[in-house]
């Protein structure tokens, strides 16, 4: 194993120090529930079950006999232990518990040094026991053997092998049948799973794939005559180099054999298994100690840091570690094109010469879009145009020059904070509010640090002192209630930390939902909390990002609007932006820049030429205060749009799935077809709150007017007043996060918490007049 710092870590880790190992074992054991329940009757035991487990693990680690444990005891704990107690404890440790302990150790190791490859193998464990087989004329005595099947994870940078799961079976059990059990509960993220011929079967490959691993299993040579699966062989040949590393797993077995003799003397099968498991536990303990030492010695830290910064640039794909699984893409190329590129060792950015009969093209190799097929190479000519070349048999590709690595990032402008300007904090959640382009590769990089923002939008320097931080980095369609909590906490931290206002850059798809969530989750908002996004990507010159960002920073820095609001274009002209209340705003058009509109109310105000004009009332900002975060969301809520022909099954399946609340987007004033009544009744009877809103979006729900509505009210449906369906959905999540009592839920849903329910609707708050733009 080539692993820098291995021996240094090993020596510094005090692997042979009993106290050290015992303390590690103890701390870990504390995280699990005790291996056996404390007896309710009888004498109070001297040591807790957990301690016994730790002692056993340590004992196995050092391969102590029971009496040696007795001797070492004073080092480990203040009290003395009798040797037989150790024996009894060992007998009481059950296999499931040990498996959990093993898994816990593995998780610890994985956290410090991520395992890039997984291997499955088995070895024999001998027992001194003989089995008697009576024959007619003689009695045969044969040695009993056990088989140890192990799933092992390998981390190359740390040179660490961690046992993930173990199964002990009789000696004559076939390997391939054990894979399923070994993989149970494991979730891979595309790592390769190496296994030898013994594991070759179609089912095993499926199982491995299902668990998220990429199986690299040596195919058995036997086939049913003609039906030998050639594809398997071809694929395997490609991954030969990877497969050769399979032997590393044997180190585990070697270690076990060396240190513990790979032998168990126990009688009962359970204790045999437990004994073997303890060996695996001991191995993991050893590895953990060493890896921790490496961590402390900062050998692994640098590696992890690099990976973390790189993962921030999600537009640019990087190879993870040196082991590239062959099937992975070279920036989008796959199949035939990838093969051709690998043949000339070309990477994106290199200069290539492609010769076809009658044409010669020379240019830089470009990345391939996911929408492209596998038959073409894309090169950028010197004139700047890209073209695709089809790889037919008579096409020759040659590499002429190696490309320069692309420079990431703008030369940033240094800026000095101006004490006369307000401090505005910008939190990023994934939408790129500013970006820049590398014309050579066409890649678009997000600009997110304060320096980069000032560089891309210089007018910011006149408005405020900016401080940026990244909360998360997701497309807004992947936003989730857990991330709402994270954003709320970050927002509260920023305001309480002294910012004059905060701006949250967010994707437009679900910005309305997040705005509503923040309106409920942040209590005592005394400064502006502004959400902003852009409809057209910010690398275009025509993007609406700059005006939106400037208006948002104006609102955050200058205005006294102490609410959660959304600031986006107010018309398709680059003229002014509107400030919408967070609990009353909705995205109404797929692509126009003035897509966000306030529903059932006028916007709070508008920003034009840097001036903020008020259009309706709002909470005024205060000098000081403290924002508290009350962000408990119950994610098991569903938003169901009612339509003619809707099946009761829809509601019933939600109930079966464990839904805690349902928001119905009913028709008209808040109605559903009568066929749904029984399901709704059932839901309410089970304690699932049902809230009614309208798919008309505008207007107020009134279920007292028609009999259908009255029936629904009788069933116990909560009318949603003039809330938007999306806002009611978020609010129900928030309310259910606080209480399950249906009366309470109803009361809270009907109370105006953050401006989502208005008592009166203005006549001028509706769609724009026809023909206007």
């Amino acid at each position, binding site marked *: 194993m080539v692993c820098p710092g291995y021996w240094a870590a090993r020596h510094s880790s005090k692997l042979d120090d009993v106290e050290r190992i015992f303390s590690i074992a103890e701390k870990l054991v504390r995280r699990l529930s005790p291996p056996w329940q404390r007896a309710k009757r009888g004498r109070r035991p001297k040591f807790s079950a957990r301690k016994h487990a730790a002692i056993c693990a340590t004992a196995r680690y050092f391969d102590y006999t029971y009496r040696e444990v007795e001797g070492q005891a004073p080092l480990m704990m203040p009290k003395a232990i009798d040797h037989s107690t150790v024996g009894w404890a060992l007998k009481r440790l059950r296999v499931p518990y040990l498996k959990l302990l093993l898994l816990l150790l593995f998780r610890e190791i994985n956290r410090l040094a991520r395992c890039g490859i997984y291997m499955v193998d088995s070895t024999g464990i001998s027992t001194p026991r003989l089995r008697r087989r009576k024959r007619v004329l003689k009695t045969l005595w044969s040695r009993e053997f056990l088989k140890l099947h192990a799933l092992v994870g390998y981390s190359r940078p740390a040179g660490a092998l961690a046992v993930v799961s173990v199964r002990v079976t009789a000696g004559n059990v076939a390997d391939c049948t054990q894979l399923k059990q070994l993989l149970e509960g494991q979730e891979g993220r595309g790592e390769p799973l190496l296994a030898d011929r013994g594991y070759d079967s179609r089912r095993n490959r499926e199982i491995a794939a299902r668990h998220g691993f990429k199986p690299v299993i040596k195919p058995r040579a036997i086939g049913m005559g003609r039906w030998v699966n050639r594809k398997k062989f071809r694929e395997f040949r490609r991954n030969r180099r990877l497969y050769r590393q399979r032997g590393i797993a044997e180190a585990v077995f070697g270690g076990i054999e060396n240190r513990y003799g790979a032998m168990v003397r126990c009688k009962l099968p359970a204790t045999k298994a437990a004994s073997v498991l303890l060996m695996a536990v001991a191995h993991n303990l050893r590895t953990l100690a060493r890896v921790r030492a490496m961590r402390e010695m900062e050998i692994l830290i640098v590696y992890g840091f690099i990976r973390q910064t790189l993962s921030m640039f999600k537009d640019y794909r990087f190879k993870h570690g040196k082991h590239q699984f062959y099937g992975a893409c070279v920036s989008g190329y796959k199949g035939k094109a990838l093969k051709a590129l690998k043949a000339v060792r070309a990477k994106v950015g290199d200069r290539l010469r492609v010769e076809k009969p*009658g*044409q010669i*093209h020379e240019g830089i190799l*470009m990345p391939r*879009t996911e*929408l*492209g*097929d596998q038959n*073409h190479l*894309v090169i950028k*000519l*010197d*004139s*700047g*145009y*890209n*073209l*695709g*070349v*089809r790889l037919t048999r008579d096409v020759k590709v040659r590499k002429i020059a190696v490309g320069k690595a692309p*420079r990431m990032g*703008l*030369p940033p402008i240094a800026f000095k904070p101006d004490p006369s300007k307000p401090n505005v904090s910008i939190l990023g959640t994934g939408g790129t509010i500013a970006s*820049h*382009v*590398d*014309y050579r590769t*066409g890649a678009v990089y997000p*600009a997110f640090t304060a320096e980069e923002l000032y*560089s*891309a939008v*210089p*007018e910011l320097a006149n408005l405020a002192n900016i401080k940026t931080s990244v909360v998360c980095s997701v497309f807004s369609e992947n936003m989730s209630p857990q991330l709402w909590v994270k954003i709320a906490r970050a927002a509260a931290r920023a305001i309480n930390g002294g910012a004059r206002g905060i701006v949250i850059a967010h994707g437009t798809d679900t910005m309305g939902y997040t705005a509503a969530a923040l309106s409920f989750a942040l209590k005592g908002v005394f400064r502006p909390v502004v959400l902003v996004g852009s*409809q*057209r990507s910010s*690398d*275009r*010159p*025509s*993007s609406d990002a*700059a*005006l939106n960002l400037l208006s948002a920073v104006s609102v955050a820095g200058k205005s006294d609007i102490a609410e959660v609001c959304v600031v986006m274009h107010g018309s*398709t*002209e*680059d*003229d002014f932006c509107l400030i919408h209340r967070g609990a009353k705003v909705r995205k109404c058009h*797929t*692509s*126009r*820049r003035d897509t966000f509109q306030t529903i059932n109310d006028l916007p709070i105000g508008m920003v034009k030429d840097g001036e903020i004009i008020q259009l309706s009332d709002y909470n005024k900002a205060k000098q000081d205060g403290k924002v508290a975060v009350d962000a408990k969301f119950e994610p098991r809520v569903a938003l169901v749009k009612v339509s003619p022909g809707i099946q009761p099954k829809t509601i019933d399946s939600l109930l079966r799935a464990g839904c805690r609340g349902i928001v119905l987007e009913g028709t008209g004033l808040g109605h559903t077809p009568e066929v749904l009544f029984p399901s709704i009744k059932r839901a309410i009877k089970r304690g699932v709150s049902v809230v009614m809103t309208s798919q008309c979006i505008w207007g107020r729900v009134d279920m007292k007017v028609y009999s259908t509505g009255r029936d629904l009210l009788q069933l116990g449906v909560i009318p949603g007043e003039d809330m938007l369906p999306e806002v009611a959905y978020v609010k129900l999540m928030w309310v259910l996060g606080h209480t399950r009592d249906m009366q309470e839920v109803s009361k809270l849903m009907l109370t105006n918490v953050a401006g989502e329910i208005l008592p009166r609707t203005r006549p001028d708050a509706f769609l724009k007049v026809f023909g206007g*733009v």
Partner: protein
Amino acid sequence: MALDYDALDLRVGFEIHQELDTHKLFCDCPSILREEEAPLKIKRRLRPTQSELGEVDRAALMEAIKGKGFRYQVYPENICLVELDDEPPHPVNKEALDIVLEIALLLGANPVDEVHVMRKTVIDGSNTSGFQRTMLVATGGKLETKKGTITIQTICLEEDAARKVGEDSEFIDYRLDRLGIPLVEIATGPDFTDPRTPAEAALKVGQLIRATGKVKRGIGTIRQDINVSIRDGARQEIKGVQELSLIPTIVEREVKRQLALLRIKEELVGRGAARVEGKAVNVGKVFSKTKCKAIANVLAKRGTVLAIKLPKFGGLVGKELQPGRRFGTELADYAKVYGKVGGIFHTDELPGYGISVEEVSKMRNMLSATADDAIAIVAAKKGNAEKALDAVIARTNQALLGVLEETRRALPDGNTEFMRPLPGAARMYVETDIPPIVVDEKKLDCIRKMLPELPEQKVKRYIDEYKLNKELAERMSLSENSKLFEDLVEKHVIDPTLIATTLEETLVSLKREGAMVENIQRAALDEIFDLIKMGEVAKEAIPDILREVAKGFGVPDVVQRLSLRKITEAELAKMVSDVIQENWVLIEKRGRDAMQPLMGILMEKVRGRVDGRLVHQLLERELQKFEFRTETS
């Protein structure tokens, strides 16, 4: 003075942009240009994208932030959200791509295997999204000319830009009706070596494109740009050449201009001129009582008059580069573009324009300029004047190095004026909203099978099949009505020349007269040719009939009304003998020569109703009889 172009190593190339006759390239709006007032106007601003070039883009960004906004005029029937950049572009117009592939195959070019759409950054407002979408469709075509083979470097399909319709102090007005119309761009290499051949080649290419029948016709649908360079000179891109016939003149004058600039440089080197140092001086005091209206107005509005000394340039600024344009005109162009001023004055043309000799000498004193030096003067608002003079200084310094690469505008008289500096390598990156389009062999075969006839082949066919004379054949093959011509010939078995003349000459002359030829439908033409075939109407009657049909009447009515029915031979004979009887005096006097005046009289009488040859025959016969009679009498 015939220049030896070979010695000068003249290289010329051209680019043709032709609008295609199909809906817009990235959406389904119709490609119609509108002239009336637009109901909607939308204001926008554009910001240049930052790239790794750092400083350059930052400067451009500051310019854009301080610069004018854009006001886009929108007709909701023709313009959708895609043009307004409020919706992602739709997939590429397949018809347009097929037309361009057809053109590529006609020119013998190799289509690429996969077409990628690129974005070319343009932030002067003519594209709402801040970039123009363009794609490379084919490379490597060939064009035969008298002087050899010309390579066609690229054939691209791109979207046209919006057209500028006005400008005021805060906004530039663009009309979006033209934005998005598909253009085919055909670019040749710099293979031409003399001024005449480019024009012929451009004509040929234009005819070839029109042979597909799927490109728009009319003024403004085709635009030509030329690139000219000579040894020691620099490449000039000349945009907006409207008339093909002007190309030779433009090239010649451009070469002369570059030669003149080179001579200026030599002269300056000889005089030992150095770069212009020093700042502009405010000479407003000198002109406090000037009679020059331009300067007086500026001073009245509290502008400034700035002047700069151009050392050792005396006499050179007034040197003529092209007929009617001097070096000073070049400087003025730069001042106009960068400083947005009306123009400059310089000492080589002073005293004049109301500026007196004393004022000139006072200025020379102020700037300590001798007779060897020239002075350039600008009068405008302070900021503009400074920018203008900075541009003048930059251009003057450039003159010491020779010719510099520029983009110039072609003027109607064959001269060129400066438009902007030649842009660097195109800022192009890939358009990610549109997936690449595969061009496979099947599609190309389909198109190959349906390739139209080449113009030469068509002319040959008309001459061989329809027996038209060469000139008529050429005109007919290029005309819009060529298909109509072939249909009519097939339907009516009469002389094709007659049909061709009717379509090409008669209709054209009627249009020139002012008749509404649009009203003449295919049906009317059919009726007329039927009548001719049946012998009821003579071919000379066609113009008269068509004139009336253009006014809106039906063919039978017209024939009836003008009694254009053909005269029978008996009637004609009677008419002839009547005429002879009437004019027998003339005949006696003149004898044979009386033929002509008699023909005249007769033709007037029978105008359009009978074949002239028949009249001639009958008249001759009668005359003979008459003579015989007289002789015998």
